[in-house]
């Protein structure tokens, strides 16, 4: 292209030739994040990228394996009381916090209580079922629950289970986030907001043999293209969330390794069913919503927007989840059936407004849907809104339908309860079905896995019939890293775990 040559010559003319040539440092693993994490305090943290940083700094009571089963981390074993109202954890001995303090049952008690009471805590709703904590002996702790809670262990495998040093936390108060002290493999060094976070290897880590890279820096680079460009030009070693359309370009490059992993969340369209006057009467009828679901071609959206990389879906959990209902596969596009449903509902040509965040990906999907549902007779009007405004409108029920995304939780309850139960905090459309509520409540307190799966399959069936949310696909975590990095393993929660990572020079 002529244009490129012109630029090349132009830049040469500036006379910067002397400064060319890249520097690399095998001592540091440089990770590019999609956005800047918020407060680095496990009790206050709200962002996904914050969790990625914690993955190197803060060990949790339990961890998950790639197949979503639970494995020991700071707790060696755990046991639920027969009535389900207590969880007893045996702790790992000889574990030190990064300030040299000893990790023990008292520290766990302090942390759980801190998560429940710290002003502004984000964890209270996650472990609210914990009524009190007993220190049984220095290495045994018992969480007494107000009611049985099947999702509790999953919560302890995330931020609610991250243990901070009680001494450091007491000294820092709410300023703990500026210098977090945990019991993980790397300790906090410094942070310049929107620029970088640096952590270095903690010499007294309990499992230090598995940690070889001396330092890690995390750099927030929101633009996916720029993030990739930094990887390609050697400024970064690993980037998270590559845009699927960039995959082909990266695949051909032998310098990089691609890791894809289906996430835990979903993308969907939420309909306003009963929230305010904004409700579209035509779409109160489940048949019209099902017609919408049948009119969209999930696979085509996946191909056009995501290069076919994402996982097509129609349930709140992804197809490789143990809870997924195989008897209820994602429907193929069926315009004739959609038309028939609309006719049956007495709404052959309904109009619908859809609120969409003004980012390119959502807008692209919305435009594709617009073209698709038009063929079934549905006129879709796209309203692009800034993310913050959309949250506000969603919360107040000021929308007809909205495109929503949920990052997903290890336990399926986290993908369901808040969205579909009558009083759910995130139930923007105010969908309410007492029968569904009963199933959700029951699944919440059921300890037996097979029984829970059975209950959730019933939930998915009801949710599909009513379609208050039309699920259309599941995100994949596409992380790309230099071939010099060895030992990387992908997890469904999208975290970058640092164990056994090696950086060849």
């Amino acid at each position, binding site marked *: *292209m002529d*244009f490129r040559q012109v630029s090349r010559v132009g830049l040469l003319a500036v006379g910067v030739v002397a400064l060319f040539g890249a520097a690399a440092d095998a001592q540091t693993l440089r990770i590019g994040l999609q956005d800047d994490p918020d407060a680095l305090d496990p009790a206050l943290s709200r962002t996904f990228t914050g969790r990625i940083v914690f993955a190197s700094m803060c060990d949790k009571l339990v961890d998950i394996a790639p197949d979503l089963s639970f494995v020991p981390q700071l707790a060696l074993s755990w046991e639920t009381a027969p009535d389900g109202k207590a969880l007893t954890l045996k702790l790992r001995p000889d574990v030190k916090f990064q300030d040299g303090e000893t990790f023990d049952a008292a520290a766990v008690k302090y942390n759980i209580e801190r998560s429940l009471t710290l002003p502004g805590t984000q964890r209270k709703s996650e472990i609210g079922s914990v009524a009190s904590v007993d220190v049984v002996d220095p290495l045994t702790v018992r969480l007494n629950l107000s009611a049985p809670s099947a999702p509790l262990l999953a919560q302890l495998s995330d931020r609610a289970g991250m243990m901070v040093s009680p001494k450091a936390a007491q000294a820092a108060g709410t300023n703990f986030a500026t210098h977090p002290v945990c019991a993980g493999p790397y300790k906090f060094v410094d942070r310049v907001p929107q620029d970088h976070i640096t952590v270095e290897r903690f010499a007294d880590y309990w499992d230090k043999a598995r940690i070889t890279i001396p330092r890690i820096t995390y750099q927030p680079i929101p*633009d*996916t*293209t720029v993030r*990739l460009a930094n990887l390609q030009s050697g400024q970064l070693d690993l980037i998270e969330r590559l*845009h699927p*359309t*960039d995959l*082909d*370009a990266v695949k051909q490059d032998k310098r990089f390794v691609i890791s894809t992993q289906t996430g835990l969340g979903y993308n969907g369209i939420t309909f306003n069913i009963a929230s305010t006057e904004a409700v579209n009467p035509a779409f109160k009828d489940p048949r019209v919503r099902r017609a919408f679901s049948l009119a969209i071609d999930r696979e*085509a959206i996946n*191909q*056009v927007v995501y290069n076919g990389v994402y996982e097509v879906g129609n349930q709140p959990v992804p197809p490789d989840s143990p809870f997924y209902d195989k008897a209820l596969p994602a429907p193929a596009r069926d315009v004739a059936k959609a038309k028939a449903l609309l006719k049956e509902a007495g709404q052959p040509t309904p109009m619908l407004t859809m609120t969409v965040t*003004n*980012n*390119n990906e959502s*807008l*692209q999907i*919305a*435009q*594709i849907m*617009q*073209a698709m549902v038009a063929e079934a007779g549905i006129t879709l009007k*796209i309203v*692009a*809104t*800034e993310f913050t*405004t959309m949250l506000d409108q969603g919360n107040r029920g000021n929308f007809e339908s909205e495109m929503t995304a949920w990052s997903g939780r290890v336990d399926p309850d986290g993908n369901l309860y808040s969205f579909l139960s009558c009083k759910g905090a995130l139930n923007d459309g105010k969908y309410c079905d007492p029968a569904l509520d009963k199933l959700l409540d029951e699944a919440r307190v059921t300890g037996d896995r097979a029984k829970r799966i059975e209950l959730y399959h019933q939930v998915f069936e009801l949710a599909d019939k009513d379609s208050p949310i039309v699920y259309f696909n599941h995100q994949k975590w596409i992380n790309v890293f230099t071939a010099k990095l060895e030992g990387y393993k992908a997890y469904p929660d999208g975290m970058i775990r640092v164990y056994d990572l090696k950086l060849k020079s």
Partner: protein
Amino acid sequence: MTLVATSEPIAEVPPTRRARPIRDRFLARPSAVIGALVVLLFVVIALAAPLVAPYDPSGTNWSAIRKPMSWAHWFGTDDLGRDVLTRVIWGGRASLMAGVVSVAIALSIGVPLGLIAGFFGGAVDMILMRVTDALLACPFLILAIALSAFLGPNLTNAMIAIGISRMPIFVRLTRGEVLTVKVEEFVEAARAVGNPPLRIMLRHVLPNVLGPIIVQATLAIATSIIAEASLSFLGLGQQPPAASWGSSLNVAKNYISQAPWMALWPGLAICLVVLAFNLLGDGLRDAFDPREV
């Protein structure tokens, strides 16, 4: 009455006396004429978009996603298989309209305020100028971003936001020009015979300060087109499926290495039309103010 009659010709004289040289001086500059022609060309294409565009601007085609330039698609296709040439033509409508309308908004608020401040002086002037200074001190783009975030992301609101953010420049410019014109003889004369202030302002002052304002407005259209593109680039301007050059670039930046044509053409279109407006503005400035040449 006779006195009033004599004051009129005095007021009319300067413009008529200047009219011919202005046109001649403008036409004598080839770059200015080229600028005017290019602007005209873009305007005609934008107006005739439905006739000249080869495809439907929102006609998606799943089997032609991000195809490079070809005979069927001269500028290639975009992320939804739409024809980029068509999108650039239709986008021109939005971008030109954004440039013109936002400047019109800025003019329609800024010029009257500037006239009032300059003509009346005193406390009114004092207050208006302090507010103008304050607005000018806030970074233009930040103000525009905040305003369009407030109004909601769409083209109309982007135009309003840009117009309001641009407005203070016109207040200051108009006021400055009024200050120099208002002490001239013909204004004094009109005042002496007891013409009401509004009449003096509109009939005697305004026509004589229009030159620099027209020049500034032409150049402001250029910067406003860039401003609209900037807002759209940040996702705050034109929203799909409607096209604008800025929003096309916003989408294109994600495909920059696989489909550079998506970014190339809208970007070039912006450069070209902004360049043309700059040439036009330069030509007008030289024509209105021969001292600069």
